[in-house]
Each structure stands twice: as C-alpha cells, then as structure tokens.
C-alpha cells in the first residue's frame, strides 16, 4: 500500500522544524527514520498532509556525558545506541532493549526519539527508559522543558509533547553498578513483544517497566515497592500485573498477559541477581 499524498518539507534546523509545526498545525507530522510513521501511513491509519523531515538534523544525533547521566540526541539511531560503549557500560539495559527492536535493517533507520514520540505501549524502548528513570527534553517556540518519563506517555499513541514541540534529547541516569535484564516474550523472531519487561536492580532499589501491559508503557510500581521493602524476586514479581489493564488480542488474553508479566518480571529479577 502507498501512503495518501502529502507535501514533504525538509527542516534544516530544530528551530525550523518547530516553526514548520507552528505553520502547519495538526496537519503536519515529523518524520525521522519513519519506521513507526511510514507503516501507519501505508495502512492509512495516519494521513498527515505535510511531513516535516528532521532526518538530516545531525546535531541531534549523539551520546554525550552529562555528569550523572547520559545525554542521547533524539535522532540517534537504534544501531548507534545498541553498540555505544557508554550506553553499554552506564545504562546497559537501554542497549539491550534497543538491540531487541525489530531487526538490523529497522535499527539502521529507527531513532530513539521516534520510538518514544510514537507512544506505542508495545515498543521495547519505553520500558527500559521507565526502569532507568529517564527524562525527556522537548523544545518548542517558548524554549525547552524537561518531562519525567513517568509523565511522558499519556494515552495509546499519545504523549505529553505539544503540537509545536520537538523531542530533542533523552537523559538517562548512569547506573554503572546496577544489574539488569530485558525480557521479551514473542512467538517469532522480530515480532513485537506479547509482553516484555525491563528490570533494573540498583542496590536495594528496583526499576521495572512493562511492555504491552496497558494502553501506555507501564511502570510496575508495586514490584518496585516490594523490592524496596526487601521482598524476594518471586514475591515481588507476584505484584507485576497490579494496576495494569492489558489488552486482549489474538496472541493473548488479559489473564495470559498478567501471567506473562509475573513470569517475565520474576525471571528478570532473578537474572539481575535478586
């Protein structure tokens, strides 16, 4: 299938992208690698009349040291994150979750900013950013603001980004001494997770993010609280589906997803040494 017709405009800078969004309003969509947006447009689930191409904004492609955190440019490709030495040593969970996205070809095109701005609860990367307690930076006509990852995902394919805002950076706390595990349950290589879990254990604290367990990427807060109060892996993982409203589809019922969340979180906690 071919997308509905649109005008294609290339932005030469972040400022120009923001001003083009202002000019075209909700008719416009930003496109980076396009690996979330182009499939939607091909299925005619999205039909923006203007595409603002930000794929050439090379100054938003980086991994930098920000002191106690890593700064990752929104246009950094999955491939570049998955092999980055600083990401691997300081936030290894993110490198591992990223390596699980799609396949090599997809990771050569897809970007971290695009993956989270898409707001898909079935995406792997948001779960890792929840577990790592990342912060998202958005730029708009009035300047820059920081959005904690817990406030970023607001609904199915919806985020806190305003209509004229551009996601520019993701800040990921450095946790070189943490142990972690990324668990993904799917039926075939390359499939989306039926359920997935990002598990990070840092001393007596845990960070747990779930994939495909609600209409948004979900923090398993009850598991984190149980670990903080000294529970073992099996006991803490029992709370993995607490407060979640997972979808039912041809792959899994609600009950099966709840079961998977408990199993995957337990495996993740055990793999992370709890």
């Amino acid at each position, binding site marked *: 299938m071919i997308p509905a017709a649109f005008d294609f405009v290339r932005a030469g800078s972040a400022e120009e992208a923001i001003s083009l969004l202002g000019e075209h309003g909700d008719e416009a969509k930003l*496109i980076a690698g396009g690996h979330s947006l182009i499939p939607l447009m091909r299925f005619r689930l999205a039909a923006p009349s203007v595409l603002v191409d930000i794929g050439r904004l090379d100054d938003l492609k980086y991994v930098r040291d920000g002191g106690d955190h890593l700064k990752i440019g929104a246009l950094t490709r999955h491939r570049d994150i998955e092999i980055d030495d600083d990401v691997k040593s300081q936030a290894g969970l993110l490198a591992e979750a990223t390596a699980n996205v799609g396949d090599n*070809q997809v990771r050569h095109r897809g970007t971290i900013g695009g993956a989270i701005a898409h707001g898909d609860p079935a995406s792997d990367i948001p779960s890792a950013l929840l577990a790592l307690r990342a912060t998202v930076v958005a730029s708009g006509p009035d300047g820059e603001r920081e959005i904690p990852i817990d406030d970023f995902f607001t609904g199915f394919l919806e985020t806190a980004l305003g209509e004229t805002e551009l996601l520019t950076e993701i800040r990921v706390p450095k946790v070189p001494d943490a142990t972690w595990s990324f668990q993904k349950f799917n039926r075939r290589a390359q499939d989306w997770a039926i359920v997935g879990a990002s598990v990070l254990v840092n001393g007596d604290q845990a960070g747990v993010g779930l994939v495909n367990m609600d209409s948004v990427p979900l923090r398993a807060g009850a598991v984190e609280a149980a670990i903080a109060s000294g529970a073992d892996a099996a006991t803490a993982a029992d709370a993995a589906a607490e407060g979640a409203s997972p979808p039912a589809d041809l792959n899994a019922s609600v009950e099966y997803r709840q079961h998977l969340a408990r199993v995957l979180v337990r495996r993740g906690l055990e793999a992370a040494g709890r």
Partner: protein
Amino acid sequence: MEVQVTVNGTSQSHDVEARTLLVHYIREACGLTGTNIGCDTSSCGACTVHLDGESVKSCTVLAAQVDGQEVTTIEGLADADGTLHPMQQAFHECHALQCGYCTPGMVMASVSLLDEIPNPSETEVRIGLEGNLCRCTGYHNIVKAVLQAAGGGQ
C-alpha cells in the same frame, strides 16, 4: 518533487510524488527490478538494499528521505565484468536458494551483516538475518553461505 539518488554508483534524478517509496523509485523510476517486493510491511526483507552502505528495507523508506544519498541494490554488487561478489558466489556454491525470491534481500542483508560483524558465529548470522524471511525453509544453506563468505576473506 525531484529526487536525486546515486544508485549503484550512477547519479539518478527523477521527478516523483513525495509519497513514492524507495523500493518503487528503484524498480519503477530507475528500472532496477532485482529488488523484490515481498510482504510490503517491513517484515520480510525481500526489498533490502544498502543506504550509504547499511542494509535498510526499501519498502519503509521514502525516496524523498534519501535525496542526495547513495543506494546499492543487488545489481550493484557484482563487478562490471560479471565476477560475482563473494557473497553471491557463496550463495551459489552453497545452494543457498530455492525459488530465489528472498535472495536479493538475503544477499544484501548478509553483506551488511559482515560489514558489522566480519567473523560471525552461526548464532550471530541467524540473529543478524532475522529481518529476512525465506518461505522455502532454506535457512540452513543461507547461514552456511554467509559463514563461508565470512571465512573467505570477505
């Protein structure tokens, strides 16, 4: 809109609709039909080409996005005198194809894989090719061919 792409070393420029997918640009505007369209949903990898040297699925890239960049298709792999690329030669010798439909994409993905992992294990080859489907169930010989190409001083 005018889209200029260097395809297999030759600069091409065509006036196409903004919504033209790279695979259609390659097949219809450039007339290079070695790149196949399979699933059309970025799953099967039959349309894999190299964009600035890296494997991508050309059914999920807009031609407009790659304006000014370099694309290599299966037609651009062999030498001008017809000498096959080592990966093509290995596919030939290992009988790494049956119907051949997935083969252009498999070869392009495999060349890109060895650029990133020059001496892969069998597991790394299998994981590295997870974005390419063969419905003749021919993976065994495909993996063998990639390992042979890697060992052959690729």
